[in-house]
């Protein structure tokens, strides 16, 4: 059968899916096994590419604690009213039915590297020949004094998409004209470098759309500069005059503590109070990465730039936000790109398929106001043991409206593209 089309291909795997419903120990006899932890931009892509390209030769299991995945990317557009929540939430059904991937909805508790097993929360184990770890980030709540997981129920971080995003949206919608929003921005390195500033844009858009132009958004930033700063500041001045104020450390002098209940942030300069307080704390690799012994002192996972293989274990690959990927930012696009390199290497090791030199890419689009999108991106290759950029680009200030509109439309096309690439 050399000439099957994609639909037949899907049907073949559909038939295979029934066989895969057997208990773990009965199936995959002799087949190499890949287990992927984390069903986001990195993990879902890795699982899909390994299953798709190995054409059934590799048994692929995807472990994620959630039934559905809400993308962090475009969650700001949900805040701004450009997207509904369902449109940024995706299921794993097609990965199962069309690619024969075994999805386990469970929390991965630890990894027994010696016996090559992932241990689930219920104590059961899932054996692997190669493991892909793509858990995204965990928040270091106490990096901001006074902040905690409990405080996040009042002052949401919304830096993992899901209920937190909906909570932030509800609180944003409740802000009255003249009331203030205070954001505590995260220190480097963190997920989605332009994300906090796109979020401010979307919150300002929402306020302005309701005529709440007496409201103000204060950003208290531990960083001296931020991604696409010139573009965002130009946009804020143009669309939201007097509504957005950004304070770097040379102005506020240091963020001392927050109090979620009263909505206050203490800095060296002053005490800031908001009807809505959005605290985005420092970040580290998702918990399983540390439990599996894959992190270093930075809290993230060192990897080999040519393969995404963990420096700490030859059978484990770490991709996405949890990895230390040199010049690549922590983004969904980066994770998707890294997943394809890891998938290609893993296949070559398990099925002798051809391996090619690693190439990586990233583009981050941000929306500033209706039909005003900006982008930044780069290509990357391994160089001297690190992932280094080979060329970069960024939108320019003062661009024509038509260019910005085209950039926004391109971002919508990308969203369709990457989610199709992740979930089939």
């Amino acid at each position, binding site marked *: 059968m050399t000439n099957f*089309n*994609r*639909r037949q291909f899907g049907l073949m795997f559909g038939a295979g899916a029934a066989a895969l419903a057997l208990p773990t120990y009965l199936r995959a006899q002799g087949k190499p096994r890949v287990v992927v932890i984390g069903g986001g931009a990195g993990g879902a892509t890795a699982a899909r*590419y390994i299953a798709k*390209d190995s054409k059934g030769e590799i048994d692929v299991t995807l472990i994620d604690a959630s039934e559905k995945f809400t993308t962090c990317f475009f969650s700001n557009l949900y805040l701004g009213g450009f997207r509904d929540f369902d449109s940024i939430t995706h299921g794993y059904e097609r990965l199962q039915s069309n690619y024969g991937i075994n999805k386990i909805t469970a929390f991965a508790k630890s990894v027994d590297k010696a016996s090559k097993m992932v241990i689930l929360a219920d104590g059961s184990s899932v054996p692997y020949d190669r493991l892909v770890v793509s858990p995204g980030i965990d928040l270091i709540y106490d990096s901001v004094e006074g902040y905690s997981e409990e405080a996040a129920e009042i002052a949401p971080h919304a830096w993992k998409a899901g209920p937190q995003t909906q909570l932030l949206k509800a609180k944003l919608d409740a802000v009255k004209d003249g009331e203030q929003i205070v954001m505590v921005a995260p220190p480097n390195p963190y997920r989605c470098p332009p994300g906090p500033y796109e979020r401010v844009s979307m919150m300002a858009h929402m306020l302005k759309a309701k005529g709440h132009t007496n409201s103000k958004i204060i950003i208290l930033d531990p960083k001296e500069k931020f991604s696409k700063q010139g573009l965002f500041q130009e946009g804020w001045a143009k669309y939201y005059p007097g509504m957005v104020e950004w304070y770097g450390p040379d102005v506020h002098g240091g963020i001392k503590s927050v109090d979620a209940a009263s909505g206050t942030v203490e800095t060296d300069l002053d005490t800031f109070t908001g009807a809505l307080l959005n605290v985005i704390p420092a970040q580290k690799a998702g918990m399983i990465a540390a439990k599996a012994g894959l992190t270093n002192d930075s809290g993230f996972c060192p990897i080999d730039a040519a393969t995404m293989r963990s420096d700490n274990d030859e059978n484990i690959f770490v991709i996405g936000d949890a990895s230390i990927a040199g010049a690549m930012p922590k983004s969904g*696009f980066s994770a*998707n*790109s890294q997943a*394809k390199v890891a998938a*290609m290497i893993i296949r070559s090791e398990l099925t002798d398929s*051809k391996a*090619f030199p690693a*190439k990586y*890419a990233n*583009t981050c689009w941000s929306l500033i106001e209706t039909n005003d999108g900006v*982008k930044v*991106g*780069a*290509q990357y*290759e391994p160089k001297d043991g690190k992932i280094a950029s*080979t*060329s*970069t*680009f960024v*939108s320019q200030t003062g661009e024509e409206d038509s260019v910005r509109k085209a950039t926004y*439309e*391109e971002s*919508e*096309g*990308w969203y*369709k*593209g*990457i989610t*199709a*690439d992740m979930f089939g």
Partner: protein
Amino acid sequence: MQIEATAPISAILLFLSSMTVGAQEVDPIRGEKLFKACSNCHEVGEGAKNKVGPHLDGVFGRTAGSIDGFKYSSALKRAGEEGLTWSAESIDAYIEKPRDFVKGNRMSYRGMEKAQDRSDLVAWLERISLNSPSADINAESTSEVVGFAAAVLEMDGDPDYGEYLSGDCVTCHQISGQADGIPSIIGLPKEYFVRSLFEYKTNVRQNEVMKNRVVNLSNEEIAALAAYFTGIQPQ
């Protein structure tokens, strides 16, 4: 009414300027300008060829999805089989909201909101597609691009390598051939595919994302990508 008589079809335009749609006059000169949004994908005029989209010569009265050799979406073909033909009215309705007009079609265009814009564009298209072409609407590749492309077209690209490299493309360009704001790149003529990449590299086409990708591709890699993508059939 003043007409800038620089276009070779100015005589027709003078005639058209008295036409009206509803209460408003149609302005084919505006229509020609508006066509720039279409011309990345569609050629029209003498010798027009299929590009990302089918050529538009003689489109009025044509059955939808009927040009031999163009790989249409099954949705558009089916619409044609069910009797859809292109007229001023159907083209107007199509370009207003392409996604809604024929569900599942692959035209990567969000739609032209204003009725006046559509009237102007259709009025111009109707004349240009039936009559002698305007000289400047089929901006051919530069000789530099043709030269670059020729070197690649002589090569036998490795489709397996192309498949790996395609990972970088399909994050945006859907492998299914679906297009939602970013064009489909599967099943295109090889020459067109290769030239397009060099057009991004040399700023004939302007898109920083594409340029940034292409400047990092060797000729061997472009040949590999062409071998892979041109071999995929839309479903």
